[in-house]
């Protein structure tokens, strides 16, 4: 078995989900692990990836039009790499980045795609959640090439030191493919609005403080930000809070949002719909603050406090500051 991991990065940094995915690759018993870094001015990322423990090779494709990841341009590169290197497994993080192109690659290779892998049983057999995590399916692939996205919270991060991978450029064969794809599909990146935050990234934060409909408005999320800052954590939200327009969609934790599994998850004013639980129930310790003692969130909470959140959250913040 040889595994190709498609790196998620921002052209400067290797994003941490890639490290979890490399760990998943090692669980396949792969004799060779390659990493594809496709981007613009991304040589530094390729160097970083080559040092990750377990990585044997890094293929770097550097082209201006790869600055923003597009499924149309990255897919033919992956397909060609598979053809050249006879790769048996293709893995990438199950983030919006990975989910966007991996099924396209699978279809081009005429194989199934395996979404959100949470466990690797053997090189052909994988576990994945279905029905918002209310059931766990074990599936066996009959394909020669396995393509999957990896739920990063289910695997540890591979150490960023200890690898001695070789970096090679794939520009000579890959750039013509990129240019052809742009010509064929007429896809164009126009703009992006990235929410800048000083806080850690939601999916890899050690602590997540989330708010729900009980927060009443977006202004009140300041309270949660202060608590998150005290704990060095990230801020999240339930779908109800996002739908009500309190906060932006990228904060959403749940089946259709981000999947998190921090050391500590604090749910504030969140009732605990199954779609929300699907996104956070693997957290190590769950604290819930809600004024409704019957709220389903209390069924999964290790520490449940029935209280008015507008009083309890500032108090909790002060108490934690004192205790630290």
């Amino acid at each position, binding site marked *: 078995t040889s595994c190709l991991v498609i790196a998620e990065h921002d052209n400067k940094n290797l994003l941490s989900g890639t490290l979890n995915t490399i760990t998943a690759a090692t669980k396949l018993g792969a004799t060779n692990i390659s990493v594809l870094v496709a981007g613009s001015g991304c040589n530094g990322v390729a160097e970083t990836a080559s040092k990750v423990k377990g990585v044997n090779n890094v293929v770097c494709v550097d082209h201006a039009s790869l600055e923003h990841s597009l499924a149309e341009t990255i*897919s033919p590169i992956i397909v060609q790499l598979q053809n050249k290197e006879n790769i048996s497994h293709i893995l990438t993080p199950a983030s919006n980045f990975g989910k966007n192109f991996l099924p396209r690659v*699978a279809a081009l290779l005429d194989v199934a795609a395996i979404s959100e892998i949470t466990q690797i049983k053997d090189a052909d057999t994988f576990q994945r959640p*279905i*029905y918002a995590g209310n*059931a766990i399916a074990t599936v066996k692939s009959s394909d020669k090439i396995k393509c999957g996205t990896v739920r990063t919270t289910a695997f540890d991060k591979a150490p960023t030191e200890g690898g001695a991978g070789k970096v090679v450029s794939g520009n000579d064969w890959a750039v013509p493919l990129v240019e052809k794809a742009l010509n064929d*599909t007429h896809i164009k990146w126009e703009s992006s609005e990235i929410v800048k935050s000083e806080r850690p990234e939601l999916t890899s934060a050690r602590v997540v403080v989330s708010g729900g409909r009980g927060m009443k408005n977006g202004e009140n999320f300041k309270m949660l930000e202060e608590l998150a800052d005290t704990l060095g954590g990230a801020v999240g939200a339930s779908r109800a809070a996002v739908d009500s327009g309190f906060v932006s969609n990228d904060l959403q934790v749940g089946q*259709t949002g981000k999947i998190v599994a921090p050391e500590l998850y604090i749910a504030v004013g969140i009732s605990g719909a199954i779609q929300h639980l699907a996104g956070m129930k693997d957290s190590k310790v769950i604290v819930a603050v809600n004024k409704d003692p019957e709220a389903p969130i209390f069924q999964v909470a290790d520490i449940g406090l029935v209280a008015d959140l507008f009083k309890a959250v500032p108090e909790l913040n002060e*108490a934690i500051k004192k205790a630290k």
Partner: protein
Amino acid sequence: MKILVPIKRVVDYAVKIRVKSDKSGVETANVKMSMNPFDEIAVEEAIRLKEKGIAKEIAAVSMGPKQSQETIRTAIAMGADTGIHVETDKELQPLAVAKLLQKLVETEKPQLIILGKQAIDDDCNQTAQMLAGLLNWPQATFASKVDIKDDKVHVTREIDGGLETLSMKLPAIVSCDLRLNEPRYAKLQNIMKSKKAQLNVLTPEKLGVDTTSHLSTVSVEEPPKRKGGVKVENIDQVVEGLKKNALI
């Protein structure tokens, strides 16, 4: 312009699912079924494009057993013009669905295919991307805004950390995220009318598509139960609990 809207019949989102005791799957007999919520958003978006005069015709397509026709009729009651049913009792995985849709594109000739980003049963999130790959069309997944001007579609999509806008030349594929719109309820009068609508019924065999599954299900199990349900009386006890777990 014609829009093709693939829709899926799934266990209703409000149903608490039960895993079968023989671990072969999830109980679907005598369970309320509905249109996949993300597909409802797709139908709604197509109708809005028609109301704006951008689209001329909306064809809804669903695949699966006879009962899928109910889901197609729901789409027609909402405002789709025609319905196509690809009838089969066999399991259809996303790759097979994408291949069947690819065939339908040859005859239906849509300029835009718009569908939900994922079905809430298998949570795969694959069909749009696979179909785009097979057709070599541009794709915009996880759309939260769709704007069509001339022969171009501008899509704002949800990405990790924010939003991005892509432009694609038609024909193209869009998969819908939650924020795109809020689907309408069908009017009673339209629901009654949709019951009489003539559907175009096809089969995978007729379309000449091999729908063999590449993934076999070994087992379906309940997730490990989380121990919880512990309540404390006051803030001090919360802080104590955090200390005990070495979190502060």
